[in-house]
């Protein structure tokens, strides 16, 4: 029965998203693009904070790096928009290997802020780099010719793809190892899990996914500046979505992204007021209902849209 309900929800959602060009207007399209790439970024932040136990305030590094990879490949080296887009994931994933190796020396809250410092170094260096237009940034002219419906489908693909990736990862052996590490590093190591390696894998996957979603932001905008691209506000958004939606749940980031979009649209007049509301909401949710909306639904109604927990037979 619940499998049928799950299928109906999935099928209905997929049908609505695929047929949007037939019935949706420009406003709906841009709202869904915005929602989709935020959901993808939140999914990646949740993979780290919710499943790998790696709380980080440095993911804006991969937002900026993804944007700039696309911009440099397109605008300076003349590569096509979509090949550049794909390469953004590669560049971010590769960059995450040495960065992870260095910042993993810090634990807990120190890892979170240490990652932020590394992102700041990138923001400052890109702002001082003539090749990418210093702090005034770059236009990506080729991206202005991209069909907005193509951007829409890629964005939805990213949101769905990131979700599928996380579900697939969590159902695999690596996912079990990851959650074991989150729940107790020493115990996991005692059972033969290579803690450092499994964390690095999650870190690299999240960097690549974040970079890909960010490159799409650059295609859509199509203008980037270091202070916006490497801004801590990307993490403020991602952590809000994950905490409100439900940390360590696969549905959470999507629910959180929808709420984030609503807040943005209601308070679009004041950036500062908007951020006060986001910050205060995160604090209240963390104190009152730390499991988030998806967690509440799971606990109260015994419902999950994407079951990943394994139940003993019988």
């Amino acid at each position, binding site marked *: 029965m619940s499998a049928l309900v799950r299928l109906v929800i999935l099928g209905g959602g997929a049908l609505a998203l695929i047929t949007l060009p037939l019935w949706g207007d420009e406003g709906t399209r841009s709202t869904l693009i915005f929602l989709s790439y935020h959901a993808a970024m939140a999914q990646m932040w949740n993979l780290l*904070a919710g499943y790998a*136990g790696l*709380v980080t*305030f440095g993911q804006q590094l991969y937002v900026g790096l993804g944007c700039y990879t696309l911009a440099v490949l397109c605008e300076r080296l003349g590569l096509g928009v979509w090949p550049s887009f794909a390469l953004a994931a590669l560049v971010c994933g590769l960059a995450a290997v040495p960065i992870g190796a*260095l*910042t993993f*020396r*810090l*634990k*807990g*809250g*120190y890892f*979170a*802020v*240490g990652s*932020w*410092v*590394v992102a*700041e*170094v990138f923001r*400052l*260096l890109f*702002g*001082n780099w003539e090749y990418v237009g210093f702090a005034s940034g770059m236009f990506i002219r080729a991206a202005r010719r991209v069909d907005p419906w193509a951007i829409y489908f890629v964005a939805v693909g990213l949101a769905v793809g990131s979700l599928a990736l996380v579900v697939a990862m969590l159902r695999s052996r690596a996912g079990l190892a990851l959650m074991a590490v989150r729940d107790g590093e020493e115990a996991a190591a005692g059972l033969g899990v290579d803690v450092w390696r499994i964390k690095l894998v999650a870190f690299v996957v999240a960097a690549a996914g974040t970079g890909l979603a960010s490159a799409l932001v650059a295609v859509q905008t199509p203008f980037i500046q270091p202070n916006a691209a490497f801004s*801590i506000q990307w993490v*403020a958004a991602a*952590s809000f979505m994950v*905490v409100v939606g439900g*940390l360590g749940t696969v549905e959470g980031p999507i629910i959180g992204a929808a709420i984030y979009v609503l807040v943005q649209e209601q308070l679009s007049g*004041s*950036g*500062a*007021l908007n*951020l*006060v509301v*986001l*910050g*205060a*909401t*995160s*604090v209240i949710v*963390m*104190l009152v209902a*730390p499991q988030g909306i998806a967690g509440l639904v799971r606990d109260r109604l015994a419902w999950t849209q994407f079951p990943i927990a394994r139940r003993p037979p019988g």
Partner: protein
Amino acid sequence: MELIETLVNGVLLGGLYGLVGLGLSVNFGIMRLVHLAHGDFVVLGAYFLVVGLVPLGLPPLAAAALVVPGMFALGWLVQRAIIERTLGRGVLPPLIVTFGISMVLQNALLLWVNADARTLHTPLASAGVPVGGITVPAIRLVDFAVGLVCLVVLLLLLARTALGRALRATSDDPETARMMGIDPRRMYAVAAGIAAALGGVAGMLLAATSTFYPSTGSEVLLIAFEVVVVGGLGSVTGTFVGGILMAVAQLLGARFFGPSYALVAGHMVFLLVLLFRPRGLMPRTAP
């Protein structure tokens, strides 16, 4: 000669950086909390002085006498009302909650005042004092002296008083401390108050030393964080030494590569220390 001038200035500014780090160090040392709103507390102290008190016509020293207890009370209240409930629940809740407080403070400041640059105008900022053949800004001497006094007072408080003993006992083992009649949550609130009061002092010096904006809080947080890690987690004296190292690094970076490289140079020194001496210069507890 110019190089010596840069070094001396760096060491003196290091007093302020060390002081900024001390607040974070107290929070971490007593309750293992990485307080992401500490930089915003510092900046709030600066705004409290420059926008809240000086326009009333109060002399700066009388205003300072209000900022310190005011910040202590704020630190105490935020700890008891909010942060206390997140302790002992893992890594994420305190980080999310202090980050949320930081967002609220920073943007409430933007709504209350605006994004304009502020500073505290004092004769100290323009006066120069000759020190062994070179001239240093008087305010930097004040930064260093106040930072050093705060460090010594804090060390004496922790080492010599009953309160300090209770704080250290809570830090070492809250359960045993409770059996000895110490209420750990009360000690945590005292520690948070001391940290915020130190932040208030640092904020007033910051206001007199340079310009600041609501967004300066994040910059201050990162400097405080680097100062603490470079100095060695858990060591108050190390934090002060870390402050000097970070300030010297920034001023040298600005001198050799241009002013826009000051922050980068500081961050680079932090990353180098992380690479070669991950436990900091004067480590006491494991990170």
